[in-house]
């Protein structure tokens, strides 16, 4: 006599994203989500006015009223870090949005048309590659004045080729697949095929590249603000905070620069690791 044991319950399938990211990737996604929330709700979260000067309490140590202490003019460091997350995160977001919305259509058109136009666009991208982003941004700033807008536009142009090159290479492979031929036979227009079929299939690749780019752009933008050419003091911004804290380091107060630096490294790490997980391979990320 045989006893039929009830079938073991199937392990609950986890969503694809969770499996693909793994614990480390999920942790990075959580860090990014938390930072984004902090940036969005910064004015509500910041315990104090980030620009309120208090010359009686300069370089104060951690206390209940100033959890991370104060800077050289007695401003609350925690509040400045929180409010500073806004420009520090918004800048790279704008740059990446710009380079994706310029680079992807260019790459798709180039891969679709092929021939001399494609060759010309590829040469053009090669030339753009020759211009290091920070230098292009400095050139733009010398013409249009210091500030985030010049830097964002220049970096958007400089990072566009990275998005375009990856997208073009993948689009060329994708367009040779049988389903594209089938769609053409059915009489779908090039626009429809590119927009409704190629683009969604290349989506995860573009998102992966954009995520990695976000990290590198954040470094570039923070560098420009650090040089005094981007976000202008007294505005709170991580790059600005590193620069304005630098003179105090030798007086024995490295806190301001260190905290802002740690936040930048943490954020960039989160974005590059997440980007690598998205590409779903253990290869080293595409450097910019």
């Amino acid at each position, binding site marked *: 006599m045989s006893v039929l044991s009830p079938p073991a319950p199937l392990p609950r399938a986890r969503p694809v994203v969770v499996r693909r990211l793994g614990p480390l990737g999920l942790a990075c996604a959580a860090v990014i989500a938390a930072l984004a929330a902090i940036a969005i709700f910064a004015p509500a979260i910041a315990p104090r006015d980030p620009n309120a000067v208090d010359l009686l309490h300069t370089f104060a140590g951690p206390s209940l009223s100033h959890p991370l202490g104060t800077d050289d003019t007695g401003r609350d460091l925690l509040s400045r870090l929180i409010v500073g997350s806004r420009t520090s995160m918004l800048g790279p977001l704008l740059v990446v949005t710009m380079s994706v919305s310029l680079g992807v259509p260019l790459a798709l058109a180039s891969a679709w048309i092929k021939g001399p136009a494609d060759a010309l666009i590829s040469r053009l991208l090669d030339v753009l590659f020759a211009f290091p982003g920070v*230098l292009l941004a400095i050139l733009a700033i*010398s*013409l249009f004045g210091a500030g985030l807008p010049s830097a964002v536009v220049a970096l958007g142009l400089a990072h566009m080729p990275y998005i375009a090159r990856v997208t073009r290479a993948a689009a060329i492979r994708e367009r040779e697949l049988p389903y594209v031929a089938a769609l053409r036979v059915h009489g779908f227009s090039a626009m429809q095929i590119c927009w409704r079929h190629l683009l969604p299939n290349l989506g995860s690749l573009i998102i992966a590249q954009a995520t990695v780019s976000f990290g590198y752009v954040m470094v570039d933008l923070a560098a420009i603000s650090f*040089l005094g050419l981007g976000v202008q003091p007294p505005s709170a911004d991580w790059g600005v905070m590193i*620069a304005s804290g630098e003179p105090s380091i030798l007086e024995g107060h*490295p806190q301001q620069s260190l905290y802002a630096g740690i936040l930048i490294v943490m954020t960039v790490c989160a974005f590059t690791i997440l980007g690598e997980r998205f590409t779903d391979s253990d290869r080293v990320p595409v450097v910019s």
Partner: protein
Amino acid sequence: MRVISFAASRLAGLAVTLLVTSFVVYGALYLAPGNPIAVLTGGRPLPPRTITAIEAEYGLNRPFFLSYTNWLGKVIQGDFGKSIVFRENVLSLITARVGTTAFLVAYAALLIILFGVVLGVVSALRKGPTDTAILAGTTVGIATPSFVAAIVMISVFTLGLHWFPAIGAGTGFTDRLWHLTMPSAALALAGTAYVARLTRAAANEELAREHVDTARSRGIPEPLVVQRHVLRNALIPVTTVAGLTVAGLIAGSVVVENAFAVNGLGSYLVTSVQQKDFPVVQAITLLLVAAFVVVNTVVDILYAVIDPRVKMSGADR
């Protein structure tokens, strides 16, 4: 023959890129709000005689294309115009600072190649905690901007240990070496981490290949297997990426020089932007981009020479 025609096509590409770059750097004058004169003088009120002189020097009253070729002709001869702030030849202002920047970049390049390759190889050969530690360290290293590395180093090695000076470039070779150690290390950090990652990946790939197994089965001692069969093959892709990383240092030096108050091209570029000294900005930008492009091309050609398997696009096989 193959390598020569490949090099020729690369050099032609280099010439085109340089030409376009010069066009962008000059054309930028016309993109800015206001007229080119306002940009060149930084909006300073200057006597009409000086303005006429600048107009004549840049050929601004001629059509754009003619004034561009006129400017380019002068640039090729090393005449970058006069600094608005110092009323001196831009070329002589720049040459005084080229050496410092070149020293900084070369020093950082040395650090990257040395530590990057060594860390990568160790990471590939020592599986376990060593590998994990190097992997974690390089992940953070790649994400650390040079100016963050700079403030950490100043806090630790200047403020804490008093080992290295925090500012200046020093005079004489040993003093300069001592002054530029921290700046070079800060500049090299991300690149070192990246090259280490790449070396590790390349070495792991070679370790898994059959020719390594064959060599081991023939009883060749492990050090020789690693040296002859793993490293020699793994270092081919590393060479290219290390070269490109080094080229990237040229732009990176701008930030590091400012972090450590090193008086090179980069800190002069930023000062000139702040002082609205556009002829100097033009010259330094052009010079740095040119250096970057030239190093890139040289690396490309070297790669073709080192690795006979490299696919030469634009050359007959």
